[in-house]
């Protein structure tokens, strides 16, 4: 086993510049979309007073919880002292910060008054889980930044384990906080469930690891460095466990709801009668986000095929976006239960299922945030010594 050498990628190939170019265009489109929304007001979006959070929130929440999950590899190396994961801990930490920044950018640019961010940073209502999240998100960036510093600076290496511990607990709080945004909403039938917090933690582990595996495999493949099968195998095995855990939590959430009569309406809506939401749940969350990637990861003929593993990771990401669409938008589309046993009609669309059709602007804002995260990662691996130059199995002792 050789000592690990961290080296920047060369980053001069046509492919690299093409990647930067494409991502840059998506980021620019997202920026323009944000300006357009800010200039005109939210009437140019599909969001309204019935569906108040839309596609931007799906992307923002996805990126924020994926950020926490992307730290898995670093956490496992520091907290659980698994040496096989150590060489990739830096990439894991950087990826997690980049994803969080992308998600927060979308969240902030969707605000009605994004220029008032300073107010959100200085005035806190400590009973608000949102206010706590401001601290958790900013704190996460600070904690991981210190963690990265301790890992990169030789003299501080000995403390990196403590920083890793702190980051590990912080990320659990972060996803608990994000899940609680929905868990604490008593008004809506689809939310108001304590299981939301741990479910978001599990979802984060799965989505974040899927993105990490993709970024890792792409970085090594495109920079023509070696990445051993055993390393990839360990991570996909872990991803499989997380995917199964997400399915378990999804099952528990719906079974618990189905037992309670007052929730039959919303469950029937999501699981059976909800049209797009029902399709997204069964095809998106369960099939594409759950069963298919599980099959690809564990079926011997596909388990070692990098393309199949990439496909599995992409499916987890798509399934994750579908899951959050159903939770965030489906949860709002179902009417508030103000008058049980009554048919409710009003000029304010009470009683009916709410319609939501996202416009191009808000979709571009969401994808722009995703691309922003990825372009930052692409730049980080070129500018900083983050990627080990050789991750061949013989080099990294993947069995420890």
């Amino acid at each position: 086993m050789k000592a690990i050498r961290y080296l920047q990628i060369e980053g001069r190939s046509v492919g690299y510049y093409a990647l930067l170019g494409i991502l840059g265009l998506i980021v620019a489109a997202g920026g323009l979309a944000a300006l357009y929304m800010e200039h005109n007001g939210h009437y140019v979006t599909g969001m309204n007073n019935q569906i108040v959070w839309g596609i931007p929130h799906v992307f923002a929440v996805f990126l924020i919880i994926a950020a926490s999950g992307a730290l898995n590899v670093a956490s496992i190396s520091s907290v659980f002292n698994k040496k096989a994961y150590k060489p990739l801990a830096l990439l894991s930490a950087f990826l997690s910060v980049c994803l969080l920044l992308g998600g927060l950018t979308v969240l902030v640019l969707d605000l009605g008054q994004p220029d008032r961010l300073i107010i959100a940073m200085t005035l806190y209502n400590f009973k608000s889980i949102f206010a706590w999240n401001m601290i958790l998100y900013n704190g996460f960036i600070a904690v991981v930044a210190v963690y990265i510093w301790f890992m990169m600076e030789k003299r501080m290496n000995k403390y990196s384990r403590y920083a890793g511990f702190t980051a590990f607990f912080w990320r659990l709080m972060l996803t608990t906080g994000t899940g609680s945004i929905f868990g604490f909403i008593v008004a809506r039938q689809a939310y108001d469930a304590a299981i939301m917090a741990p479910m978001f933690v599990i979802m984060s582990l799965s989505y974040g690891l899927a993105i990490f595996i993709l970024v890792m495999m792409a970085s090594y493949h495109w920079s023509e460095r070696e990445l051993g099968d055993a390393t990839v195998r360990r991570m996909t095995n872990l991803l499989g466990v997380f995917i199964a855990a997400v399915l378990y939590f999804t099952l528990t959430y719906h079974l618990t709801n189905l037992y309670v009569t007052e929730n039959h309406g919303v469950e029937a809506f999501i699981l059976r009668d909800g049209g797009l939401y029902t399709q997204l749940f069964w095809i998106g969350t369960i099939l594409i986000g759950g069963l298919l990637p599980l099959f690809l990861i564990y079926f011997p003929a596909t388990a070692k095929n990098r393309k199949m593993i990439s496909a599995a990771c992409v499916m987890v990401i798509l399934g994750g976006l579908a899951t959050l669409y159903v939770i965030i938008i489906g949860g709002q589309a179902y009417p508030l239960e103000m008058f049980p046993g009554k048919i409710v009609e009003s000029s304010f669309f009470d009683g009916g299922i709410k319609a939501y059709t996202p416009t191009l602007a808000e979709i571009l804002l969401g994808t722009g945030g995703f691309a922003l995260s990825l372009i930052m990662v692409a730049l980080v691996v070129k500018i900083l010594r983050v990627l080990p130059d050789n991750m061949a199995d013989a080099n990294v002792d993947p069995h420890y």
Partner: protein
Amino acid sequence: MKQDTDMNRRRFLGQTAGVAGLTIVPGVMLYEVQARPADQAASSSVRWGMLIDTRQCDTGCTDCVTACKTENGWGSTETKSSPEQQAQWIRKVKLTDKQTGHVQSLPLMCQHCETPPCVDVCPTGASMKRADGIVLVDKHICIGCRYCMMACPYKARSFIHEPLTDQKPHAPRGVGTVESCTLCVHRIDKDGTPACVEACNAEGHKAMYFGNLNDPDSDISKHLKQHGGEQIRADLGLNTGVRYQGL
């Protein structure tokens, strides 16, 4: 020279006002005693509330909604927003019992909860409750995150989706911020009655009462004591300031 003229005019105005004041003061005094001076904070000894008698509320009547629109300047101001995006501070809701077919009608607006979920979730404190129980949005520090709209069990809040002009000075509204029924706080602070209640009573419908829930001798408290009043979503334990009869 100019200054002298000004002084003379001021003195004249002052004297006239003094004489006029002395003449009408005996009549005004009773009225003035209850009004809260502008520099005095709202007091928690008062809890403003509303009682709606759904049995008197006609399905086709929208007098309260019209009055609110006129008073607070919403309703026709958002020209670019879709109907789903336009603000509604108060709305008429028609309820039909699925079992019996019994039809009811009622106005629905901010319920001015004692423990409002919108205030709990607001990250900056823009969503707030005054000591006298009125739930408001401070438009200066609302960042437009809409978490309060997610949290409100009554869908009482609206987000402004486009820039607005020509607002009422007493009811400022702004693009990118959230707003809702203010219980006509500007009228209450001058000892008035919310526009919706006034309109309902002016037309003789007698479906809406307004007053101090903490005062056992107020009209509303007497009505509530005698006939009772239910809360919408009482299961949430929010102790709403708006109560309904005949629900």
